[in-house]
């Protein structure tokens, strides 16, 4: 490197600055003009994060859930629709679709003690049903409810026992 090699860095910095300017204008204007614009800053802190409003994290790891499953110490509850449940579920899981939780609750939770370990799940990284159902159950008095995020996908992918049919 010579003394002159500093020049390319000056050139590079200037270009990076210009590029940043173009990007700022393009991004800002396109977002301003489009119909499906998103806010520049949005509160993401409460979305599909298995953290309750009081700050308690309900997330359970797959390893821990699989362990509890093996030892038959937890009850798994499928928060998806009945159709999805029928198409494939964690072996032995109960069905309690979150959207119908209000009126299916009594039937689904019959015989489950309030102290039982309960694990809710749905499907997809961004699925919020399991978390909502967990909060619902906690409000109903179940103390030990955890959420297996993206549960159905990770369970299936790891070859853990599943069930199908009604």
């Amino acid at each position, binding site marked *: 490197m010579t003394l002159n090699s500093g020049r390319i860095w000056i050139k590079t910095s200037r*270009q*990076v600055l210009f*590029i940043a300017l173009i*990007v700022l204008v*393009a991004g800002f204007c396109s977002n301003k003009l489009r119909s499906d614009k*998103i806010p520049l*800053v949005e509160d993401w802190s409460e979305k599909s994060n298995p953290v309750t409003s009081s700050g308690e994290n309900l997330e359970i790891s797959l390893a821990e859930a699989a362990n509890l499953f093996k030892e038959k110490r937890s009850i798994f509850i499928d928060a998806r629709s009945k159709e999805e449940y029928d198409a494939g579920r964690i072996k032995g899981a109960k069905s309690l679709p979150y959207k119908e939780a209000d009126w299916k609750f009594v039937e689904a939770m019959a015989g489950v003690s309030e102290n039982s370990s309960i694990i809710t799940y749905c499907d997809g990284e961004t699925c919020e049903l399991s978390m909502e159902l967990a909060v619902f159950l906690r409000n109903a008095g179940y103390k030990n409810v955890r959420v297996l995020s993206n549960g159905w996908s*990770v369970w299936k992918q790891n070859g853990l026992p599943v069930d199908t049919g009604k």
Partner: protein
Amino acid sequence: MTLYHGARIALGIVFIYASYDKILHPAAFAKVIYNYQILPGELINLSAIFLPWLELTIGSLLIIGVWLPGSVFIGNILLIIFFCALMYNKARGLDISCGCFSTGTDDAPQSNLYLLRDFSFTVIAVYLFIKVFMSDFAHSR
């Protein structure tokens, strides 16, 4: 066409292709960024709005062949950041979609494939970096 031109155009196409779906679907891309669980909430939407345009801009510059030091430099930084993000989430066992070329959620995320793909782009980018910056050193001597 030399290897140098080929590399520039190939990397340019990669960046433009990567920007396309994200520019069309900013909300879906924001969700992808959120899933990485790396950026603080305040930066998620800003990244979703500006990152695709950055990819489009440097992709175009790489193909046209102007402002090469700037675009090659940014390209390297981006690919290295992407690599680290993918690596980080693989290490902590987070099974998420890449969001590299589409804003959809893959059925079966494959972090090894994502890493390998990003690595091969980085090789091209580093090659261009050496070409652009070293030749300039040679000229200015």
